[in-house]
């Protein structure tokens, strides 16, 4: 595993813990099909949330959220629909939402965590 992937995986762990602490249930992690990958799929009450996690050591190359652009969001929607098609029972009766979690700092365990709800 390359260093960046280790960092990314550590960041996703941290984000999953944070979301669980906020009352969400993690339904799926790193769900991958040919089109791409969803980092986290979580749910809380009537909400089904697809979360993109971005981890960066610093903001020398821009803020993590700057990488979640329109193209990325369109792809997330497409994958989210595909996930719902693959998991109809878990998606049933829940409203879909896209979120992003950014982690900025050398160590994901202590990095600054920011959470954007309902990207549009």
């Amino acid at each position, binding site marked *: 595993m390359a260093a960046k992937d280790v960092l990314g995986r550590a960041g996703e762990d941290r984000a999953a813990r944070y979301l669980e602490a906020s009352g969400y249930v993690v339904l799926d992690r790193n769900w991958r099909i040919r089109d791409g990958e969803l980092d986290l799929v979580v749910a809380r009450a009537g909400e089904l949330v697809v979360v993109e996690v971005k981890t960066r050591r610093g903001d020398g190359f821009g*803020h993590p*959220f*700057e990488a*979640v*652009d329109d193209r990325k*969001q369109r792809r997330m929607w497409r994958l989210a629909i595909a996930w719902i098609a693959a998991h109809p029972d878990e998606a049933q009766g829940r409203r879909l939402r896209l979120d*992003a979690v950014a982690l900025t700092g050398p160590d994901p365990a202590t990095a600054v965590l920011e959470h*954007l*709800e309902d*990207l*549009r």
Partner: protein
Amino acid sequence: MTTARTWAIALTGLDGDLVEVEADLSNQTPEFRIIGLPDKALGEAVQRVHNASANCGLALPRRRLTVNLSPASVPKHGSGFDVAIAIASLATQGRMDADSIAQTVHIGELGLDGRLRPVPGVLPAVMAAAREGKRRVIVPHANAAEASLVEGIEVVGAVSLADVARWHGADVEERRLDPVPAPASVREQHGDADLADVIGQRDAVEALIAAAAGGHHMLMSGPPGAGKTMLANRLPGILPALDDAAALEVAAIRSLSGDPVSSLVRRPPLEAPHHSASIAALVGGGSRVLRPGAIARATHGVLFLDEVGEFPPSVLDALRQPLEKGAITIHRAGVAASFPASFQLILATNPCPCGNYGVRGASCICPPMAIRRYLGKLSGPLLDRVDIELGLARVSVAHAADLTVDAVTTDAAAARVAEARARAAHRLCDTPWRINARVSGPWLREGPLALAPVVRRPIDAALQRGSLTLRGYDRVLRVAWTLGDLAGRASPSMHDIGRALFMKKGITI
């Protein structure tokens, strides 16, 4: 605090509209958008604001910023909104005093290093802000002197964006930056030319003084080297100094043309466009940004058209409406702008294409048709508005050697002009007019001060003979009144009428 607002000014011609610049910070992925009818230069403010903020140590929030310029229907152009956009955007995080920002008008362009760069049109913009009741305006350091010409508004000159932010209470470290200097003026000054330099043209000098005293439009015709340009260049020196309102209007037009303005210039302006000038160059224009033309820059001063026979007739005819109304309104898709255009028109021409027609001791080689075509461009409605037509001859050796002793200086002429204008203004105090050139024909002929038939005899005769039209009759009367004012008479004498008639019919076309 996720919204912040401040003020900027959108200029349409000389009229400024207050524009509310509101910034909203929403919890979305980073983005920076400007909405509200911006043009290309204003759309690029995104990049300038981004870099300028970063280089001032004031990072923009990493969320979605939406900047709205309202009223959204007013077209906005140029880079003068940069500072207002930057300050509103930075203030969404609440690092500055929101009240202070909401009461201040910001004008200026940002450099990538965060310094404030001067913009054209600061003077009319600040005038608009003061008129709309704003108390404070922050302008680039290089425009501070210009903005301070407006009374009743506090002017703050800022060197950099950090200065502005600190002024509103942000905690930014102070860095020494050299202010961006104002652009150097490209317009030459016709300062020191004295009327006494004009040698041997006494009639012409007297006619020039009459034109200045009565505000009469004048046409000069003479061979090359007779001194037409020399005379025209000396006219602003003998006109009365501009009053506050006029000087401010002249300065506002200069500012809009992109010339640096630092003090009020009291000398009336002189504009002498080349005869290749287009209609847009003369009356003003442009596609979206309407710029003042030569006639607007000549307002309260002199518009000198040299070699008027070389101007395209369409360009000359474009002068008719502004001559009538004293203002020009330019319409383009979606915008209309008004500029003042109350100028004194001085036309100069050669008598024919080769310049020698009617000159003693020289032979004209032009065929008759060429001469008629050359001067034919002048005839018609434009010439109808010219009160004084002056024929100039070349100065002979004898005149040049002899008459330098008692040449009229600019100061002496200016004093006579001022006295004559005061006399006219006193006489016309019950009328809407202040100078003789503006007085209406019927008032001259039948008003309370109509001349006695004895005095009028020379022009009555000319009218009956048909050598003078009724419109020409009125103009001779106007010039005669001016000559009477200059001579200190209560009303023109027969002699004044005769001289006025000569000044009207001095050129045979």
